[in-house]
């Protein structure tokens, strides 16, 4: 037992400390949250914002314009950006573990194109916001069910076959999206479809936030609770089974949870790419590959990242910049820089 000394000593020097975790998981998101509330068309100083919060808590008083702006417009949007950013990152990290492949995004099983098709159809046929969200969610889930079902029919649990099934289903739905675009009215419906597919949080209301908080929280909770098992699962399906896991059921449960998150996010915000692919890498560079740390860290960094991007999207120019464009144009160079510096945590 004498030899355990050096082991735990190195452990402390390599692994982030408790204070680091608290900063990463709590201070950083709260700071971003508060800062994001300050920025917008209607300017507000930090002091005014704090005062608005204070007043808001007071019962029986007439809300000021600033309070209205902050609590009915900015707050739902800021909260939704954090929820979706955190959710997509957790979902991406989870898929990367299941597929044992760091190049996998939450959209690997065709959820985005499925949801895109559902939304495009709904825009074409009705245009009602609730119908669009519902259709996007249902078709997103359907696409994943088709991909996974195809893998099961071929009686294989091979990740390669599952990836290919995702590609097949994705291609099918993206052809259907093109078809819907082709028949859509180019002056009225087509732009709506195109903007939806680019992803945006511009029209987020409190209702949208309340719609998705339950499914996304549920998905994150399940993945968070199973984070140790994802470690074991990522060693290989057979090895996971020899260590006592029911890998098939575990995989199904994880895919369902991750898809619940992704489909809910896509339903209200459209397709926001890049976040779910890259944030888990950033988290791995900072905290290592262990999913016990990776899941919470991805959640926190993803929430902050999408919030930053969305705050840029609504402040950078007079109009709104679609999120899908910004996540990549800001994120790609940023990732290129950190890629040079850090160890990736995978080989």
């Amino acid at each position, binding site marked *: *037992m*004498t*030899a*355990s000394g*050096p*082991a*735990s000593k*190195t*452990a402390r020097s*390599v*692994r982030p400390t408790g204070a680091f975790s608290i900063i990463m998981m709590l201070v950083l998101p709260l700071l971003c949250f508060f800062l994001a509330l300050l920025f917008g068309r209607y300017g507000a100083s930090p002091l005014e914002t704090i005062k608005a919060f204070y007043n808001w808590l007071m019962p029986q008083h007439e809300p000021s314009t600033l309070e209205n702006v902050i609590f009915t417009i900015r707050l739902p949007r800021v909260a939704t950006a954090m929820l979706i950013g955190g959710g997509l990152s957790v979902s991406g990290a989870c898929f990367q*573990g299941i597929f*044992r*492949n*760091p190049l996998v995004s939450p959209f690997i099983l065709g959820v985005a194109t499925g949801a895109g098709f559902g939304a495009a159809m709904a825009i074409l046929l009705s245009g009602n916001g609730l119908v669009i969200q519902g259709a996007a969610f249902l078709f997103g889930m359907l696409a994943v069910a088709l991909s996974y079902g195809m893998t099961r029919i071929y*009686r294989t649990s091979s990740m390669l076959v599952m990836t290919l099934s995702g590609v097949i289903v994705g291609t099918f739905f993206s052809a259907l999206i093109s078809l819907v675009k082709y028949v859509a009215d180019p002056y009225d419906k087509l732009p709506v479809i195109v903007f939806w597919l680019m992803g945006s949080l511009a029209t987020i209301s409190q209702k949208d936030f309340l719609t998705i908080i339950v499914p996304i929280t549920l998905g994150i909770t399940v993945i968070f*609770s*199973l*984070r*140790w*098992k994802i*470690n*074991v699962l*990522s*060693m*290989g399906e*057979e*090895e996971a*089974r*020899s*260590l*006592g*896991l*029911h890998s098939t059921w575990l995989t199904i449960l994880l895919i369902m949870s991750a898809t619940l998150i992704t489909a809910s996010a896509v339903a209200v915000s459209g397709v926001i790419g890049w976040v779910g692919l890259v944030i888990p890498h950033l988290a*791995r560079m900072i905290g*290592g*590959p*262990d999913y*016990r740390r990776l899941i919470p860290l991805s959640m926190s960094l993803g929430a902050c990242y999408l919030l930053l991007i969305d705050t840029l999207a609504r402040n950078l120019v007079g109009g709104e910049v679609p999120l899908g464009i910004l996540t990549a144009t800001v994120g790609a160079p940023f990732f290129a820089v950190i890629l040079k510096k850090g*160890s990736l*945590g*995978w*080989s």
Partner: protein
Amino acid sequence: MILEVHKAGFAYPGSSGTVFNGISLSVGAGEVLCILGPNGVGKTSLLKCLSGLLPLTEGKISCKGENILALSRTQVARTIAHVPQLHNPVFAYSVYDTVLMGRTPYLGFFSPPRQSDRVITEQAIDSLGIAHLAEKAYSELSGGERQLVLFARVLAQQPEIIVLDEPTSHLDYGNQLKILSLIRNLARSRTAIVMTSHNPDHAFMVADRVGIMFNGAIAAVGAPEEVITVEILQEIYGVAVTLLRNDGFGSMCVPVFNKYAGNAKLWRNNE
């Protein structure tokens, strides 16, 4: 007998031919069974069946008297540890975390490892003398170090039976001998061990019993000195070998190599 194989047969689903047929074997606590056989004879498939990773198509495998397919995955994993051939995990988990994974069969569905699991993990790491590697990434280690880490994981898993698929492949000479003596030590602590090997010498060194697997069946099983003969080595590997009986130090195979072909003829004439 802690692990008994009765008339086992196996075929991969969808394929027409069987991999093996009518195999009966048994291992007792503290015993090392080494399976020898040519490439592609189905040794790895047999080991996977023994660990309950693949279902037999015929016959049955009993672990402590119960059919292995009737036990839950957790129950099997608490009794049998399976060490696969060396591989590359995608994510660079630390050695410590890799060993900690051996505790998985003892955890509840949603629970991560507890303090008691960490203690057992540290003991396992210490007992193999790899504490200095604990925070290194498993994927950056050499083959010998990786094999030691997998053995530490087996210790953390606290099984009664250990199934080892070619534990000495990809290792240098020194590491091969280290792993073999480690296997003997595990057997001394009453663990039953089933292993495969490509080297008959290794069977001489560690095995209490040897099974010769050939043409989808067990051609012979028994003590190494009885089973490993010049004839059977000629038959399964198709090469000429002489055996050096070395009393008190075990036997050794000496290939009749073309460089020494003339000498061997002389030697045989002398006998």
